[in-house]
């Protein structure tokens, strides 16, 4: 076999390997996003029940409750992009967080079995979402790195791959859900 032919074959093999690794990275991002989507949906499903249970008591948080319900309606639209879902998730997380804090101010709610159960279910879903977000961010980082690093960046360019957005992990989430605190409440 002539030298140029060997070089060409090696070059093609390298090209295929790089192409495959890029596709694998993109698929990994998509797969994990699908899991996040499932978890987010689980959380959105809890919202109507939560709002119904607490709205009787929560006079001062009416606005937040309405906001959460509105966000849920928005999230249920089918044609949302990944970036829009990420943005919505951030808003829902913060709104739900403030409702949960507000619950602490209502002794009737703290004693309500349904609310306590909802609170625990929500905290478990939040823990799952937090894990999925971290997994997604790592997958996106690997993907984005491949988009910038030589030589995969040339192929990525040719394939029309673009950068993806990572989830912003709220500071309180880094500290993780404090289950013990929940049990004391």
């Amino acid at each position, binding site marked *: 076999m002539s030298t140029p032919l060997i070089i060409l074959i090696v070059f093609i093999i390298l090209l295929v390997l790089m192409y495959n690794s890029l596709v694998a990275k993109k698929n990994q991002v998509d797969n994990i996003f699908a899991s996040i989507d499932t978890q987010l949906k689980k959380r959105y499903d809890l919202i109507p029940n939560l709002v119904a249970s607490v709205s009787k008591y929560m006079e001062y948080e009416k606005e937040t409750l309405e906001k959460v319900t509105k966000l849920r309606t928005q999230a249920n639209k089918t044609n949302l992009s990944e970036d829009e879902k990420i943005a919505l998730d951030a808003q829902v997380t913060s709104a739900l967080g403030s409702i949960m804090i507000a619950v602490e101010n209502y002794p009737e709610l703290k004693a309500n079995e349904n609310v306590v159960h909802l609170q625990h279910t929500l905290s*478990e879903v939040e*823990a799952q979402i*937090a894990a*999925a977000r*971290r*997994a997604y961010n*790592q997958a996106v980082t690997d993907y984005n790195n491949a988009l910038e690093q030589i030589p995969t960046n040339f192929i990525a360019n040719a394939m029309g791959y673009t950068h993806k957005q990572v989830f912003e992990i709220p500071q309180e989430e*880094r500290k993780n859900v404090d289950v013990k605190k929940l049990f004391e409440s």
Partner: protein
Amino acid sequence: MKTVSELTDFYYKKLYPILQDLEKDRKVINSKLITRCGITTFIAIILAVIFQKNHFQTDSFIFLGVIYIIAIAIIYKMLIMDYTKKFKDHIMRPLIYAIDKNLSYNPNSHVSSSHFREAQLFQGKADRVLGNDLVKGKINDVSIEFSDLTVQQITGENDNGDKNYKTIFQGLYIVSEFNKNFHGRTKVLPDTAQKIFGDYLGHILQDTTYTAEKLVKMDSIAFEKEFVVYSNDQIEARYILTPTMMEKILELKKRAKHPVSIAFINKNIHIAIEYNKDLFEPSVFHSLLEYKIAMEYIQTLHLAIGVIEELQLNQKLWSKL
């Protein structure tokens, strides 16, 4: 749970009469050991001289050497047998009960070999699993068991048909119920590749060297420096290894002062700490009253039983209640 200093107090105050008693036994054992080993050595030398004079072959000398080593080992074992039993019954058992009354202690049993095999934390086949000092029970409603464990793999056979063994793990093996539901398998192993080759090359190596599970890059720099994580579920690995859990594992590693490997499998957490020696055995050549010796027993027990509190395994999630 009692603190290490409370346990040290208990050791030196409550157990003091027994310790003194054991110290007397130890001194007697030591002097007997010197005499008996001396006599055995003397006989061995005389035999060697006789062999030499009669022009025996090299094989005979090797045979004599092997017999000599076996004889010394038997003498040692026989002499410390009662002493060991007394130590385990009157020091180890009260010490364990002082930490938690609900725990049971069996000096002659060990964590089941199936636990070790299912975790697959160490490379090599677990052909022989030895161990003792099994502690078992429930603390704060969380099941835990741990013991001393030595796991060996057969490497071959010699001419006489005797098997040769290579030790793949020796140390403390802890199995406890985990406080979260999970379905996959996640392993946390000591990191060597990243330490030697740096982040970039290290990650590439880790990614390619392990096949059963995929590499999970964690988002804690300190944790990534000490450990490498493999799992068959990227999300579940992070569900288990929350930022808090990673911090706790780092603290555990710092306290253990030995390599720590962890597996999350079948609802349990397995923690293997490589001490590379037989634990919870009575010291023969140093006094049990020595602070350093006492601390070895106390700290190891405290670390093992304290795992539940340290890793907050008692804070169960709603769905596990």
